[in-house]
């Protein structure tokens, strides 16, 4: 239980996808113009992270890792399929995004309309693939921790994009040097928010 909690807090604050690794920056910059769409996209990203991380964790540990196939019999203990992990992970993510898109379209058409193009674009959001690759690198002890890590990363991402959108809404009224308008000032604010988030880096539970 303690480990779950500490993984969660670490992934939300200390190892925040955006401020510590810059994953998912492209959609972060493009969609953070108003709070409502930012919230929608953040929720979708969180949901997909929570769903794909456990699946990829199981695939990694029972099929891809060196010796992971030993449950098939002694002949397979030497097999190492880890070079396939990129292909498999991206396939799981892409198909899952497609699935979520169809489910949302069928059962929540209003949400589907408000998310529009961003839903299919999640497949190429680096935060999702990044989550799976970090999961592979960190070698979590069990599938529960992996799911909690997914949830935490997603919520961290959601927090960042909503905060950014709120600041940008206010920014419309400020006087910014012309060449810095738009993209430039967004970068600087993200940098400053990142410095702010660094104060969590010593956090331990």
């Amino acid at each position, binding site marked *: 239980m303690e480990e779950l909690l500490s993984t969660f807090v670490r992934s939300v604050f200390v190892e925040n996808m955006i*401020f*510590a*690794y*810059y*994953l*998912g*920056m*492209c959609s972060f*910059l*493009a969609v953070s113009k108003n709070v409502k769409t930012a919230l929608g996209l953040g929720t979708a990203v969180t949901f997909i992270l929570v769903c794909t991380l456990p699946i990829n964790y199981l695939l990694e540990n029972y099929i891809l890792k060196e010796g992971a196939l030993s449950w098939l019999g002694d002949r397979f203990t030497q097999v190492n399929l880890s*070079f*396939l992990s*990129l*292909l498999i992970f*991206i*396939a799981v993510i*892409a198909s899952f995004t497609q699935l979520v898109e169809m489910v949302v379209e069928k059962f929540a058409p209003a949400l589907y309309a408000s998310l529009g193009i961003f839903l*299919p674009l999640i*497949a*190429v*959001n*680096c935060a*999702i*693939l*990044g989550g799976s*690759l*970090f999961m592979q*690198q960190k070698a979590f002890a069990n599938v529960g921790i992996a799911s909690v890590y997914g949830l935490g990363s997603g919520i961290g991402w959601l927090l960042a994009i909503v905060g950014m959108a709120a600041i940008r809404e206010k920014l419309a009224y400020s006087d910014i*040097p*012309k*060449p*810095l*308008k*738009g*993209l*430039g*000032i967004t*970068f*600087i604010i*993200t*940098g*400053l*928010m*990142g*410095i702010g988030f*660094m104060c969590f880096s010593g956090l331990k539970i």
Partner: protein
Amino acid sequence: MGLLSGKNKEVLTGPLSKNNPVIVQMLGICSALAVTSKLEPSIVMGLSVTAVVAFANVIISLLRNTIPNRIRIIVQLVVCAALVTIISEVLKAFAYDVNKQLSVFVGLIITNCILMGRLEAFALGNSPWESFLDGIGNGLGYGIILVIVGFFRELLGSGTLLGLQVIPQAFYDFGYVNNGLMILPPMALIVVAVIIWVHRSRNKDLQEN
């Protein structure tokens, strides 16, 4: 028609400044920021991305008339994933230390938006040779930004370039101190913001209202 006629030259050199993928088109920002705390990984990353974009562009351009429109994203992802797997195995074999530093970001070339952006916007509608030039141009445009950011962050942050000491010891004796802040992740954003600032004040037509 030479191989480098006027239009092709434009395709190749446009992305270097006027149409730069990172600071103008806003593509591929994730990895541009994360790997640039030192110069060497920036260069390796720039070259890897150039290779992947160029070859993915050629392959998709060759296949462009045979791919059904509905499944093109999956096809593109598979082509990219295959190329990135090759690159990451090559890096593991010949540049293991750099590969360790780049960690997950080699794998993340797949989801680099430059790749998907160029495949969608250019390779699906142009011949293989033009697509190849476009890939090289965009890869290099991305690489240039990485190298500039990596250069300043390593110089100001650790006083070294490519691991060699460039700021003389005499400076440190006078009380010069490395700016440790430059090594930290957030400063990459601010360095890129400064590049955007300089670039846009020179190209007035890019400014936003």
